[in-house]
């Protein structure tokens, strides 16, 4: 299938926060409660429609375990978007965000869009990190923020798609050089820059989903 752009995403965060489950929910629309530890990278892909343009999301689901951390860093390069995930029921996964963020900033493009995700929002009774804390962290570090549940699919679509919208917005503003592969963006096959969005292109009518369904 043709597409206007391909965006490379990485999913990072502590082990057990639900990175692979988020990907599975997004690509296959299903939830698997028990998942194998990820080693290396597992890939997922899905087409989304942003402002009438088909965009292919190529998603790199990385290992969260500390033992694989040095290897995970090598996958950051050339990512246009990152989903930085913590578990709202485990305070330590929130405390480690700074370390993950440092890695992401150090090993990827400065323009990379980072979506902070507080996952497992269905487990409200076990909540250990307030939503406001996630919002404050995101505000402080210039991230987008959402709480999601890979189990109920709440906000999962929105998290991936809103990240794509922000990348697309940056392309329109000329902040991303789409010809520089290091930015994690590729123009689709048989697409010329004239048919793709660029600086000055219409910035309205971004559709597909709202900014937050409010289900979490």
């Amino acid at each position, binding site marked *: 299938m043709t597409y206007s752009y391909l965006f490379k995403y990485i999913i990072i965060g502590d082990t*057990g926060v639900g990175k692979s489950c988020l990907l599975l929910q997004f690509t296959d629309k299903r939830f698997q409660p*028990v998942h194998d*530890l990820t080693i*290396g*990278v*597992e890939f997922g892909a899905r087409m989304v429609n942003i402002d009438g343009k088909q965009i292919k999301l190529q998603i790199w689901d990385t290992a969260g375990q500390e033992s694989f951390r*040095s290897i995970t860093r090598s996958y950051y390069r050339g990512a246009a978007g990152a989903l930085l995930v913590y578990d709202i029921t485990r305070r330590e996964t929130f405390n480690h965000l700074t370390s993950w963020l440092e890695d992401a900033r150090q090993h990827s493009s400065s323009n990379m869009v980072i979506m902070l995700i507080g996952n497992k929002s269905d487990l409200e009774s076990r909540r250990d990190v307030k939503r406001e804390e996630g919002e404050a962290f995101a505000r402080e570090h210039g991230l987008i923020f959402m709480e999601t549940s890979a189990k109920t699919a709440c906000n999962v679509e929105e998290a991936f798609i809103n990240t794509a919208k922000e990348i697309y917005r940056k392309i329109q503003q000329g902040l991303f050089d789409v010809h520089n592969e290091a930015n994690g963006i590729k123009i689709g096959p048989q697409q010329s820059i004239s048919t793709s969005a660029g600086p000055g292109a219409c910035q309205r009518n971004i559709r597909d989903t709202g900014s937050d369904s409010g289900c979490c």
Partner: protein
Amino acid sequence: MVPALFFFRGISLRVHQRAGRWDDGRQEPKSAFRAVGEMGSSGLAGCSVVPACAPEGPGWLQRHLLSGEFDQLRNFTIFESNFVQVTRFGEVANKVTMGVAASSPALELPDLLLLAGPTKEDGCPQLLGLFPLQFVQLFIHDESRQQLKVKFCTGRAFYLQLRAPAETRALEFSKWVRLLYRLRFHGQGAVPFTQEEWGDEDWDEETDLEDQERDWRDQLQAREARLDPQTSELWGL
């Protein structure tokens, strides 16, 4: 230290291979990977490389990566074959292409395992996973049926049966056997072996390595007691 994973840019000459056979029809994985390692900084020194447009052309996985969606992986030299995933008892499941690659020309041996398969929707190639070989063990599961066992350090394991034309299948499988031998015994001063010997060796080795793997898994579980590894639903293996 950041691994050299994405720093291999291949230069203008590539070693290409199709379905487990190196382009010149003579080289085995051992020498081919050595050729990669011997490129050195000039990319030419003492290596037996062939142009990318060699008659046999690249394999299915290599062609997929060359299509350009995976920039960082585009210029990897891949030794690959097509398989079907089978159960331990040989029942057929999914089509899988498995390859190994050296992420750097400085490496004497491959350090990455790649798995790919057709998409459910249209059968187009899809890269499923990229795994450092240091966390994967490969075994000969059933030599007579040309079956390999792939085992991750997390305990996940699956079986792959070579899918190739009857006239080339044995040769192709023997290249995997040679590769596994190289991966297993590299640097240990082991002498060359025959495939008949491998059968016994494999069993012993597998037992030993299963012990190692158990230790590995114990360590992982001690750290991550919450998680109970099962199959990866992401790619159905």
